[in-house]
């Protein structure tokens, strides 16, 4: 197209429109917004077919399944809207990260191309089933690419639904894949190496520091995104990371807490009850907020300090529990253990039938409760399971560190 602007004829490619303006890419590469009425179409822009190189795999390398769900690790700019969206297939990831093909031979599944805030229980089940099938087919490890925002929810959900003898590694990136400084390459390479390591559990592999020096391996039920944008946003809470992957050597070191490869037979228990909620209490909270969970089968509360809510809230919770909702208490402190036997409030909560969530993270407790309620509706069994360590989500002793 061309347009007359600033007294000269400009030629460029029409990209999109924004309000009253047409966005035009000039020959020097700059985009500018000019009045839509000022542009004249002079012909169709030459069709662009991105050069696509074939992905070559070495069948002699360990077989690893790569399951793609979307997120920043697989994001690309949509040049029409200018927004960053997830449009990568698993093949695209292999192509974008050439070093991957030297670590393992990959079988790819594209389960979704969503941003992780759109994740839901149905997809968690799809992911768990796909991983299980891959393990049965002999995969030596599985990588799940995932948006970082809710990666810890998914990692916890899969942890409960699956017993795995091989590493199941969730990985993402904090800075989009289209930038030269993206953390996607290092995270992906480290996750691939972790996926063929001696690990045997569900884990998250992400940057350990702001430098490109090392990735941490976090337990799937103990990990949390603790920063909106830093590369090393992911932290193990209530325990140390279970291992590290050095970069660029890709040397994997597993800590004493890591569950090792082959510790269990593969098993899939993929029922989830999604009538379960997570509520963060705040001072002055209207008790009707709690009433909104009437009819839910489970509710995890992220309470204050040792695990408290206001006296008002306890009355409403009490009714909720009487009507059959299983209520689990966790703490907003994230670090440390819930103890409802110290203050009156706590004792009142216990009397009302609230289950102490021990040192579980609120999100891990939510996933666990969904899974437990998918398995049983016997309140005593629910209480017993919620207070039993199943996947390293709950510790008997609280560590010193913060």
């Amino acid at each position: 197209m061309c347009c007359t602007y600033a007294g000269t004829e400009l030629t460029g490619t029409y990209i999109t429109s924004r309000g009253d303006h047409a966005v035009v890419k000039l020959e020097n590469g700059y985009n500018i917004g000019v009045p839509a009425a000022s542009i004249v179409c002079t012909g169709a822009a030459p069709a662009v077919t991105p050069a696509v190189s074939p992905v070559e795999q070495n069948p002699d390398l360990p077989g690893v399944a790569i399951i793609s769900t979307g997120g920043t690790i697989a994001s690309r700019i949509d040049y029409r809207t200018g927004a960053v969206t997830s449009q990568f297939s698993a093949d695209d990831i292999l192509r974008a990260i050439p070093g991957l093909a030297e670590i393992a031979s990959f079988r790819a599944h594209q389960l979704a191309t969503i941003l992780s805030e759109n994740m839901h229980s149905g997809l968690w089940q799809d992911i768990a089933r796909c991983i299980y099938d891959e393990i049965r087919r002999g995969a030596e490890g599985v990588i799940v690419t995932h948006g970082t925002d809710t990666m810890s929810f998914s990692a916890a959900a899969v942890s409960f639904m699956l017993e795995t003898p091989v590493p199941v590694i969730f990985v993402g990136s904090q800075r989009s894949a289209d930038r030269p400084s993206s953390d996607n390459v290092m995270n992906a390479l480290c996750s691939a190496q972790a996926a063929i390591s001696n690990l045997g559990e569900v884990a998250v592999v992400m940057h350990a520091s702001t430098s490109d020096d090392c990735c941490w391996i976090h337990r799937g039920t103990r990990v949390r995104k603790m920063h909106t944008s830093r590369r090393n946003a992911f932290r193990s809470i209530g325990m140390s990371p279970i291992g590290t992957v050095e970069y660029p050597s890709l040397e994997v070191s597993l800590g004493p807490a890591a569950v090792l490869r082959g510790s269990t037979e593969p098993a899939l228990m993929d029922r989830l009850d999604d009538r379960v909620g997570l509520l963060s209490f705040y001072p002055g909270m209207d008790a009707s907020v709690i009433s909104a969970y009437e009819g839910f089968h489970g509710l995890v509360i992220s309470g204050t300090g040792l695990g408290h809510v206001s006296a008002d809230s306890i009355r409403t919770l009490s009714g909720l529990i009487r009507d059959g909702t299983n209520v689990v208490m966790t703490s907003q402190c994230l670090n440390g253990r819930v103890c409802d036997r110290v203050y009156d409030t706590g004792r009142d909560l216990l009397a009302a039938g609230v289950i102490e969530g021990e040192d579980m993270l609120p999100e891990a407790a939510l996933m666990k409760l969904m899974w437990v309620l998918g398995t049983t509706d016997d309140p005593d069994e629910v209480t017993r399971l919620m207070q039993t360590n199943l996947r390293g989500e709950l510790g008997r002793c609280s560590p010193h560190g913060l």
Partner: protein
Amino acid sequence: MDYEAIGLKAGIEIHQQLDTAEKLFCHCPTRLRDISERDGEFFRYLRATESELGEIDRAAQEEMKQVRRFSYYAYDTTCLVENDEEPPAPLNPEALMVCLTIAKMMGATPIEQVHVMRKLVIDGSNTSGFQRTALIALNGRIPAGARIETLCLEEEAAQRIHDSTFSLDRLGIPLVEITTAPDMRTPEQVKEVAAYIGMLLRSTGRVKRGIGTIRQDVNISIAGGARVEIKGVQELDLIDEVVRREVVRQQQLLLIRDELSARGAVADPAPIPVGDLFKETKSAILKKAPCILAIRLRGFAGLVGREIQPGRRLGSEMSDYAKKCGVGGIFHTDELPAYGVTEEEVSRLRTLSGADDADCVVIVAGSRQKAECAVLQVVRRAQYALDGVPEETRKMLEGGSTAYMRPLPGAARMYPETDVLPVTVTRECRDSLVVPELLTDKTGRFSATYGFDEQLARQLAYSDRLPLFERAVAEGVKPMLAARTLLATLRELKRDGVDTGALGDDCLLSVLGKVESGDLAKEAIPDVLREVASGTGVEAAVERIAPPITSDELVSIIRAILTEREEFVRERGMGALGPLMGVVMEEVRGRVDGRQISEILKNELASML
């Protein structure tokens, strides 16, 4: 040299840092720091990404020949945006306004809706791997005789400390980039245009000053040559010399091309391993190299060693290309035997590579991977020599010669910065911008209105203290007193080792005010300022250096002096005024204005006589 005849075309790009309170895409101050003040350090690897068309930019590809680890220094005045760990803040409106003001001064048309782009830069100077830049205005004109093609607002890159280590304090400072059309035809014209644009930018009073705050890139071509961009000319005085030397370089390369063509020269692309030849060599570099490769350049003898610019040969160009692969440089038979390589080794090298006297043999040494990469780069550069002048981005060396940096970037390096929303520039906003008075006009006005001679007027207009001068005059200080104090007095104090930087505008203004109100003699200004610079308050300094003298006190001092020298006074009559003036001044040491002394002394003399 007749530049017209050889078809010189030159354009310039001027990059000027803006003196805004905050950076372009974050809220950190635009303050430079000493690296000893750093409070964090981290490192990253960068890799070239594909453009939206699936291409990798050729300049980026060149930088990617080695995987490089870049280290960064962080400060308590930098944040996660500089670390590339937080999305950018909206485009700094203050910087946009300064940029639009400059556009208006150049008569350029602003873009109605500004879109921020990412320009791929993976030499490590940007943590993100790209530089954010936006086209702000188009098509201006300046009287110095060049069209202004574009005005862009960009973020400054991080400062390279050494090799692959960068300091983040500079990253993100707003820069205006002004690109002229290739309208200049002589080196002098290039300098004139650059000087004019520099003056125009300074007229805004909103740009940073000092070394490195303004940089010129020059685009040069001659007929039959090619467009070459020379980056980072920091001194205006060198810009014409850079143009002259580039013209010479292109002419020499064209002569070499003609000679190569006459000789039927060929750059043979097959490398020959010659490591065995140098097992016992005296050259330390070759002896320890795991891999040595040779390339035979047929018909190149004598031309690789030919000077194309002061201190630069065709061989230097080949060496620059090879260095992109991480080798230290090259050896070639035009300069051998030397560097520990013997005549005998050279002759065996020629034999092994099948070279005769008309050929030049180039060798590179390093790891196998680096040597293979480097030898291909040498062949590439040799092939360019057969065609004449390659299009390149080059960097300036001391003295005005240049070295190869990378190919000219293509359009594949630009893609949208999706984290920053477009900004609409309204007509009201454009109309409300006040165009500042040009420094050249100010110089004229100072001469005409205040009677300053041209040199003083110019010095003042271009001085850092210009805003203070205008403020002082507005507050009633006599222009000449203000100008003398702010230029001459401060300069003299600085020469004496006084820290004049410690003299704030308010202090200076207060001292000038005291002189104007008669509370301080202007003769005492240097001593008072000296005291103030050492940390004393203005009032205390005046009290210590020049406690005010009442006119009664002055009268009695003068009477005492006259009485003491009565004989002399009687002898000389009114002619004693001059010599006595000095005596009184000495006595009151700048505590009273000279005019007042002269007046009282005259009266007292008269009454004595």
